[in-house]
């Protein structure tokens, strides 16, 4: 795991900061350890500070009214995951849970306010971070709004259907994401949708098409 100072050096939030500035900021960084499954944030709750993943993986998810979990993204070391509620002072829009042992670094909200006034470059960097996130979210909205991803995934499944259990091509969810021009998380969600609709069944090593005609009806004619 990187030290607080090493972490700050690589964080886009502190891009362009001098070693002296980073050293000063590192004294304001707190550390928090989480066990597997422990919640870092609950939806609707107010966080004490801006949180970064230093070690391990944090799962961001929402739970539907039916109790189903929807994974929004997996946050790896170096990434922050509650900057929006930190800056708009609202509640967290998502749940955040440790997928294994996780170490978080954080900056208390009050300290962050002081830093934003003290270091104008920090505001510029925050804008860059948030803009990148907006671009990613816009691409996700495009994918999720138009149902076309489900259609594309359905088409990929039909095109890669093996004749027997031994001869079909083997596809990962990452492969399908690349083929459908979308994110792996969106493919995962599409497969879950198709399974809920009883068109496919996810098994270990196999995606079983249970209703080929139903899947074909989902494929948009112009794709």
């Amino acid at each position, binding site marked *: 795991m990187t030290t607080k100072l090493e972490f700050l050096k690589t964080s886009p939030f502190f891009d362009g900061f001098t070693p002296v500035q980073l050293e000063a900021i590192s004294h304001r960084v707190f550390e928090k350890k989480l066990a597997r499954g422990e919640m870092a944030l609950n939806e609707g709750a107010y966080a004490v500070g801006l949180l970064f993943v230093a070690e391990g993986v944090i799962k961001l998810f929402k739970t539907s009214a039916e109790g189903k979990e929807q994974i929004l993204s997996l946050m790896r070391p170096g990434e922050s995951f509650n900057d929006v509620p930190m800056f708009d002072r609202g509640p967290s829009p998502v749940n955040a849970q440790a997928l294994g042992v996780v170490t978080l670094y954080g900056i208390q909200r009050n300290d962050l306010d002081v830093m934003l006034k003290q270091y104008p470059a920090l505001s510029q960097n925050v804008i860059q971070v948030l803009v990148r996130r907006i671009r990613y979210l816009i691409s996700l909205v495009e994918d999720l709004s138009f149902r076309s991803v489900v259609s594309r995934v359905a088409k990929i499944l039909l095109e890669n259907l093996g004749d027997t259990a031994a001869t*079909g091509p083997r596809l990962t969810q*990452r492969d399908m994401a690349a083929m459908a021009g979308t994110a792996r998380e969106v493919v995962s969600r599409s497969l879950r949708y198709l399974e809920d609709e009883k068109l496919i069944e996810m098994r270990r090593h196999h995606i079983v098409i249970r209703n080929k005609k139903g899947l074909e009806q989902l494929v948009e004619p112009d794709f």
Partner: protein
Amino acid sequence: MLTPQIAPEKCTGCGLCVGVCQNDGLHLVNRVVVFIGESACTWCGLCEAVCAAGAISCPFEIILDEF
């Protein structure tokens, strides 16, 4: 037994997959991930999802078995 496919040359040894595996099926040996065969892999795909280097994958075969 089919196991997650590992491309050692792509593995950066970051260990994220080791941490997320709920069955303790992955270990780092000399900074490269290896699958420990006796564990019961559920093919959940989390290791594939967290690997930024694309070094580990859980491929699916697509087959037909209609109702």
